[in-house]
């Protein structure tokens, strides 16, 4: 197997707050291959976005990426780069797409100007060239009358249009990796599909890898080839997308899938996962999910499960891998009882 494009090794991002050390990302390792789309899934507060920002080294004080973490990208460890070298990676080799197209654009500049800015930062070919490139990008992301649109301001455009602008900004330099943090969450469902399709098209065209962060299993099913599920700052399950849907192993993944509406099934109440993600300053001892888990038993409260390889390429951080018979006896989770 060739070297992956990005190899995250034991990434730990801690926030040193007055309330204690928040271990937002706590020992996460995964790879992204060239041209691959990987879905990163989990609830709010489980460490997805911090993982994304860590890859771009955009974690500000009081947050810190712990020194033994490694982020191997195109043969270099991003964590060993100087700030200047890192700036040449951002937007150029790795770009990010944000959730809110409303707030991800500066309200006081035209959209053309903002797309052109990316070229002006990285290519330094002058205002005129940058502007023309911006107009080309607008055309590429499917915006009609790009030359006119380029002169408009963010508030003059619809949400879907704005998200296309954000995508144009991210893809301007044809980066090797795009991190998309909930790119469709703020959009209407019909627009969501268009944006995902656009992302897929551009990925084909440029051979870009995508790390797609979402809490929407439906989006993952449509776009990703591999899924990583995070909980409590850790990876709890990782598998090819069809395996996750056909045969989820971790109870948390099961819960996420149960909370997803399915077309063509008997109408029934969606399942929920009781409780919420605990604060990252205070992960539960043992398995971090045990208090919300339907199968937890005495061992899960005591010991922290490692990642088990269920089958080739399918990892799960659950003792059910050793004691599968426990799955036959679900019970009320601890949080639901209290």
């Amino acid at each position, binding site marked *: 197997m060739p070297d992956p494009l990005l190899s995250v090794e034991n990434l730990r991002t801690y926030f040193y707050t007055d309330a204690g050390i928040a271990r937002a990302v706590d020992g996460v390792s995964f790879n992204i291959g060239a041209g691959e789309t990987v879905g990163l899934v989990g609830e709010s507060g489980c460490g997805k976005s911090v993982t994304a920002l860590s890859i771009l080294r955009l974690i500000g004080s009081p947050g810190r990426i712990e020194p033994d973490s490694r982020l191997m990208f195109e043969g270099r460890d991003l964590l060993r780069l100087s700030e200047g070298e890192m700036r040449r990676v*951002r937007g*150029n080799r790795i770009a990010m797409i*944000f959730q809110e197209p*409303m707030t991800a654009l*500066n309200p*006081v*500049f035209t959209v053309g100007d903002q797309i052109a800015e990316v070229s002006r930062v*990285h290519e330094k070919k002058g205002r005129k060239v940058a502007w023309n490139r911006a107009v080309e990008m607008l055309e590429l992301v499917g915006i009609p009358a790009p030359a006119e649109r380029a002169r408009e*301001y963010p508030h003059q455009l619809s949400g879907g249009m704005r998200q296309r602008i954000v995508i144009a900004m991210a893809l301007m330099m044809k980066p090797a990796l795009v991190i998309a943090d909930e790119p469709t969450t703020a959009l209407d469902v019909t627009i969501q599909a268009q944006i995902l399709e656009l992302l897929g098209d551009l990925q084909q065209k440029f051979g870009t890898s995508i790390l797609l962060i979402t809490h929407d299993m439906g989006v993952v099913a449509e776009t990703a080839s591999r899924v990583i599920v995070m909980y409590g700052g850790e990876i709890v399950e990782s598998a090819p997308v069809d395996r996750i849907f056909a045969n989820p192993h971790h109870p948390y993944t099961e819960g996420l899938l149960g909370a997803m509406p399915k077309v063509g099934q008997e109408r029934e109440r969606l399942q929920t996962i009781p409780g919420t993600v605990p604060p990252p300053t205070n992960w539960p001892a043992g398995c971090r999910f045990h208090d919300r888990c339907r199968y937890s038993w005495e061992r899960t409260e005591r010991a922290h499960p490692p990642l088990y390889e269920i089958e080739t390429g399918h990892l799960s951080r659950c003792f059910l891998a050793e004691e599968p018979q426990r799955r036959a006896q679900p019970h009320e989770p601890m949080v639901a009882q209290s």
Partner: protein
Amino acid sequence: MFVEWLRGLAAGVRRLDSVSRAALVILGALFLAAMLAPVIAPYSQSHQIDIVGMKNHAPSLAHPFGTDRFSRDVLSRVLYGARISLTVATLAVLVSAIIGTLYGLTAATLGGVVDTVLMRLLDAMLSIPRVLLLIAILALWSPVPLWMLVLLLGITGWFGVSRLVRAEALSVREREFVVAARSLGAGAGRIMLRHLLPNVLVPVIVTTTLGIGNVIVLEAGLSFIGIGAREPAASLGTMFQDGTEAFAGTWWAALFPGVVMVTTVLCFNILGDALRASLDPRHLHRARVGTGTAPLHTAE
């Protein structure tokens, strides 16, 4: 590049109510009259018409504001005085706005230790009473040239602005487009000037407007105790001080400069408050939410 921003400013001005529009018009007229003083004033500011025959004349058609005890035309002197007071105050406030904005932006952009050091330094400077400091400096160096007075008033008046700018910039910095710009490779300078600055200018404009009134009063106060602008160059404060020496007999020598000064300050304050309300998107938002005509976060 700032077209939209200027358009916003223009729209903000258009949203002003009639009182603040009136203030704007009065200020415009005052500025015009003051700047054109050499052209429109009947006499020069120090011209003594007739030391014996023309001193302390009450307002008349020939001298609408009367003459002072040195037989100088008070109207002419008010025009020249307004010219100096307005120029000094406006330039001083501009100096404050520029220093304060850069200082606050630097602190907010760089953050961390730099921010802490800059802000503690600011606290230290804020603990020095501005008026006493100015009195001390001017008492030692007086008379100072006007440009020096401008600089002194400017560099002792930016603390509030920089606090405001820093606070505003800190909140703008957390907005997604700034993180987005960083994620696309923008450096600190670009973030500061392109992404933070245009988005913190509104509060700067408001405080600057309010600040002009303050500085006019401050300058008048310094002139009143004899250490501001010096005779024969009149500022409104000097004239007021001069006029009060014999207020009972020649009230016009103090009243007219006083009225002009109070009017100017009042207009600046009205305008500043109105701009705060009409330019601040949060105020705007609150007003619209209040009337229930627009939902939160409309995309318009």
